[in-house]
């Protein structure tokens, strides 16, 4: 068996937004086929980290390294990161008036495949992915996220992921705002996408998504740092005991 190389790896990432350091040195390695989860209280820096990794201009990586499939992505613009195989499902997807879901995704896929690449399969692909995620076909001609309910937006984020089929998907609270059935559909979508060659880093507040999408490793993020990592049982424990437990445990350790 050949030794596997990391699929996505970042080291000592520091992120500043509006001159304030909100991510204070986090590191992570995702091997092909792995699913990692980040949990943590509001404002701990989870979205800042995801946005910074995706190249959002307001979230500056002031220190650290990040490699996608061995490629340094730090100097890349966000569209290059996307084409290199990174995907971010947004916590709060924006509306883009006047741009239909179908046209938007066509342009995105065309960018991924190359300017002159054949797109004759696109309609079929979109149709089948929409069906798989129980997205009403009428959404193809609707303007992206405009007037979509919270759950519809999240579904369409996963639809975009399925069509673009990235190497690594960062899913920022894709489960929030979903009803029970939608949660299941979305989780199935994520599992359908997931295979032995790609990786998932998902941010969530709740155990319920993790019941469907099994994480290999769970990281707890507090105040801009990963303070604890463990197996799936960590998520259960957090749900039971709350973040205070991690805090106390860490304080004790430091205090001794």
């Amino acid at each position, binding site marked *: 068996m050949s030794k596997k190389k990391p699929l996505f790896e970042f080291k000592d990432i520091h992120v500043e937004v509006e001159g304030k350091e909100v991510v204070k040195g986090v590191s992570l390695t995702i091997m092909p086929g792995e699913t990692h989860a980040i949990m943590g209280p509001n404002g701990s820096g989870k979205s800042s980290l995801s946005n910074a990794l995706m190249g*959002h201009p307001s979230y500056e990586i002031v220190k650290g390294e990040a490699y996608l499939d061995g490629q340094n992505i730090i100097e890349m613009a966000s569209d290059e990161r996307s084409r290199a195989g990174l995907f971010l499902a947004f916590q709060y997807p924006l509306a883009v008036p006047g741009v239909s879901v179908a046209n938007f995704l066509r342009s995105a896929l065309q960018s991924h495949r190359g300017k002159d690449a054949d797109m004759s399969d696109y309609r079929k692909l979109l149709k089948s992915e929409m069906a798989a995620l129980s997205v009403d076909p009428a959404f193809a001609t609707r303007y992206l996220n405009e007037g979509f309910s919270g759950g519809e937006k999240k579904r369409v984020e996963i639809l975009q992921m399925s069509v673009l089929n990235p190497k690594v998907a960062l899913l920022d609270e894709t489960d929030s705002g979903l009803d029970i059935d939608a949660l299941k559909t979305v989780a199935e979508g994520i599992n359908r996408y997931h295979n032995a060659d790609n990786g998932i880093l998902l941010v969530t507040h709740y155990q319920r998504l993790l019941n469907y999408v099994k994480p290999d490793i769970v990281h707890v993020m507090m105040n801009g740092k990963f303070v604890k990592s463990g197996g799936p049982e960590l998520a259960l424990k957090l749900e039971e005991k709350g973040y205070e437990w991690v805090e106390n445990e860490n304080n004790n350790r430091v205090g001794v």
Partner: protein
Amino acid sequence: MNTKATMIQNSEYTISDISPELMRGPQWLRDLRNKAREDFNQAPLPRRGLHLWRYTDPGKFMYELNDASDTTYGDNYDVVEKIERHHVDEGTLAGLVTDLGGREIKRYGTEALAEKGVIIMPLSEAIEKQHDLVEKYLYQAISSQTGKFEAMNGALWNDGIFVYVPNGQVIEQPLHLLREAGMENSATFPRLLVVVGKNAGLTLVDEYGGGSMDEDKGISFVNGAVEIFGLAESKVRYVSLQRQTSATNSYLTHRAQIEQGASMLTIPLVFGGSLCKQNFGVRLNGAGAHSDIYGLLFGSMRQHFDNHTLHHHAHGSTSSNIDFKVVLKDRAQSAYTGLIRIENGARNCEAYQENRNLLLNPGTKAQTIPELEILNEDVSCSHGATLGSIDQESLFYLQARGIAKNEAVRMIVSGFVTTTLNRVPVDLRERIETFVAQRLEGI
């Protein structure tokens, strides 16, 4: 004879006499032309800094107009005429009227409309054949008292178009008016009078093209007036397309009056000219009257635009809505002034106004001035304006999906204009989309 027409800019210009060619027709018309001439001569040039003239020099619309009878027209005219005639043949247009600077007005495919009692003819002809109708409405919405430049048009309009839709007739397909300004050193004074009867319906596309393409050879000057009357329960859609060439100074006043239960949709599409000042106004005269204005302006190079809208609620229980969008690139400038006036006695009115300005690069400049004159309390009114470059979050969203920055900008701008263009008749929309695409090239 080969006297080259010349035009000299002169802020003191007065009209000494109106040419005999224009002084034909009945006495009342000659009287009104003379009155307009006097009003123009007497009215002082609007002072800079005064209402509506803060951003544009009125001297740019003052020209000594010598003989311009050898006016020529650009090649582009034939291309557009062909496209629109094709639409008539295909049946997607109810008819086409071409107007070469008032000198030659032709109709295509309007026979079927004539059978329904719709009257479409040169204004000069209508004055003879539809005398009572024309006398009743002409100069009623725009008079020589409206302003100095409206008086100028009132004295000098050299023919125009008259459209009348009888009570109860609903014309499904658009009627297209193609109005061509002369090239360099020409002055054109188009005029349009539209009367839409009770319970009648009309969609009108009023396209302004032509003009001078080379400032060194001389500019082209256009001063137009559009009067529209929508009688009770009528439905009027009016699209104004400005695509004059790059050395054209254009001044246009549009005034509509709509009666009880009538609705009016006005779509100013503003792309052309070097200096373009336009004023769109709708007066709501009866309960239940509703007016929408959806404007779209896309400026580039060194174009200067100055647009004004007026919603005048003269009657209670009327409603209005404005969404005026502006996109600017290069060193283009735009000023937008939106006035909502609600009369004292006009209770229970609703009026909304929004002006969004998208500035694609730092050299552009936009001004937005909402004005409210609300003379009673029983109204629901709001206005808003935004001004700025492309939203960074939207840009990031598209880029995060792999779309390169310049393409992402093009998509966002196309989206911004699409929500307005969706209201434009489909054939025309395709042409407009081409303008937009051309302007977005190289971004």
